């Protein structure tokens, strides 16, 4: 298993009571609550953490993309990746954005990734996402066009990376007389493409057909396993067997000496982490963003109960405990879900920098050395279930 250190870069000074009252940390939570002096400190601390991850032996670092929210301060992840690109000397640099449908010229994304891939001499992982529902509000893009825009932007970017330019690209949404970006990627034919998603069937199907790596965002391990099963079935339908390297699970790990201490220390930050997710459910699911079947499925399931920190731990959405517990759970979860990558947050919610670096070092010391060569052992799946 390869373990990456993943950061969301939350605005940890957000007024969580105001968010609770206003009903959302997204789109409508006023940026008058953002203090640039505090924000500057956070950006530098968070970047320090990711730079440290590389020294500590994580296999890579991840940034992501969200807009108009205190949940994460990385609306333009390429800037953060650029800041990291000269410091991350060993591991991969994974950008778990870019939201392709949200831009009007996807060629800018092809250019951005190509530059990063050159600076890192081929250590970039190119994430392609649709962006979450709320971002169709914040970026003024039509959610009913999300899927076809995503596919078309992808085609344009991959062509821009692999076809000698100049050539013309004529799509429904994007039309360019000249496609001839300088530079082209360092990796050939292009950087690995990863497709993070919260479990959209259309994304899973498409990603499996393209033989890309699918990343599941935060979810209980049992549903992660189900989603990965669907990916493997889709791969089977396409005539190949999906490898564990095509499956990445996004999680958070917190380690202390004992299970009890770890839970006690992690609880307030899991709690605040949950509050950053708070958003107007209508804005989360704009019409046309999901297919009719998935909207109907969601409606029939009704609204789920909010999860407590202990729920998150007990359902295996995050792993919290003593070193031994964390190792056992991570191994059991790998066997259950069959992933080859763990994208692990060591800072979450309002957790302060000092605490995050201790946790990060603990993960580096107590987890990384035990998992380098570990592959999923499906035979143990039954036991894990």
């Amino acid at each position, binding site marked *: 298993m390869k373990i990456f250190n993943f950061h969301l870069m939350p605005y940890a000074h957000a007024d969580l009571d105001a968010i609770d009252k206003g009903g959302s940390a997204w789109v409508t939570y006023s940026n008058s609550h953002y203090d640039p002096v505090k924000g500057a400190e956070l950006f530098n601390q968070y970047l320090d953490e990711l730079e440290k991850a590389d020294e500590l032996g994580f296999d890579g670092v991840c940034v992501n993309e969200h807009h108009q929210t205190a949940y994460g301060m990385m609306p333009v992840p390429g800037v953060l990746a650029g800041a990291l690109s000269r410091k991350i000397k060993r591991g991969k640099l994974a950008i778990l954005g870019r939201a392709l449908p949200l831009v009007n010229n996807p060629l800018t994304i092809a250019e951005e990734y190509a530059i990063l891939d050159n600076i890192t001499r081929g250590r970039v992982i190119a994430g392609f996402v649709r962006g979450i529902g709320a971002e169709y509000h914040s970026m003024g893009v039509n959610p*009913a066009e999300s899927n076809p825009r995503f596919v078309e932007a992808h085609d344009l970017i991959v062509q821009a990376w692999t076809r000698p330019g100049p050539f013309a690209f004529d799509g429904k949404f994007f039309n360019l007389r000249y496609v001839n970006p300088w530079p082209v990627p360092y990796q050939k034919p292009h950087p690995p493409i990863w497709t993070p998603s919260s479990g959209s069937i259309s994304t899973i199907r498409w990603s499996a057909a393209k033989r890309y790596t699918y990343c599941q965002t935060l979810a209980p391990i049992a549903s992660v396993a189900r989603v990965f099963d669907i990916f493997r079935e889709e791969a089977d339908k396409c005539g190949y067997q999906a490898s564990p390297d095509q499956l990445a699970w996004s999680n958070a790990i917190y380690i202390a000496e004992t299970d009890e201490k770890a839970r006690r220390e992690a609880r307030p930050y899991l709690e605040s982490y949950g509050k950053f997710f708070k958003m107007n459910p209508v804005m989360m699911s704009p019409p046309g963003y999901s297919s009719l079947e998935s909207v109907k499925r969601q409606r029939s399931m009704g609204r789920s109960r909010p999860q407590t920190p202990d729920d998150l731990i007990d359902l295996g959405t995050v792993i919290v405990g003593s070193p031994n517990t964390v190792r056992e759970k991570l191994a059991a979860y790998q066997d259950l879900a069959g992933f080859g990558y763990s994208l692990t947050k060591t800072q979450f919610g309002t957790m302060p920098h000092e605490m995050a670096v201790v946790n990060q070092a603990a993960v580096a010391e107590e987890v990384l050395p035990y998992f380098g060569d570990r592959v999923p052992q499906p035979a143990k799946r039954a036991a894990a279930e």
Partner: protein
Amino acid sequence: MPGSANVAIQACNVDLRLQRAGVGASVVFSPDAHLGAAWLPFHDRLAEHFEVILLEHPGYGGGDAPPWLDRVTDLANFYLDALTQLDLARVHLVGAALGGWIAAELATRNTTRLASLTLIDPWGLRVDGAGGIDLFARTDEQALYDLSFDPKKAEPLVARLLAPEAEDALLKGRMMTAKLAWQPRLFDPQLGKWLHRIDVPTLIVWGREDRLLPTPYAAAWQAAIPGSRLVAVANAGHWPHVEQPLETAGIVHDFIAQQRAAT
């Protein structure tokens, strides 16, 4: 009860669903996005004097949208084809909300088959600073109440639109509405430039308590269409024809009757 028929509009490869009742001059009604092709007391009232033809927009009513349908102007061109194929002439075109936007787009293109145009709280224009709620930030239920003036009276209508058996129509309809009106929200920046081309008598009807498109929109429409008349309906939100059906039908009837008397 109106008769219902599907007519294949060959040029566009679409079955257009129509409901008809009454005899007399043709009044074609282009409905809003939420009520779809619901036949209303307002239509009954007009059908006492005219032949009322209620359209059902492709993509609404639970059916699938045709592949060519991307924007409101597509529907305007589609209905021009439909009027030609149905050979309807001297049509009094009445459109509400989204249906009013479609009707206005149609009339900027070609009025040869129109005798008059009535727009009831139409979408389609931007008015800087006029405000209004964000339809897409509301639940279906909230939106239906926001659009109504009297929530108590709106209850049965809301219940019908949100009933489980109407789920497909509701979900497909709101997907279609997003496709047509998400960005920019509920308007086309190009439309205002061409409203002066509308050369048939035009009536604008507005619910005084419209919270989606408050009354400054009404004034903007009247200013943009030469010679148009504006009538405001009290105690009505976004749908005066639903909340004040008799009064609104009366206003529309008198306007159409006047045009007929004048020719």
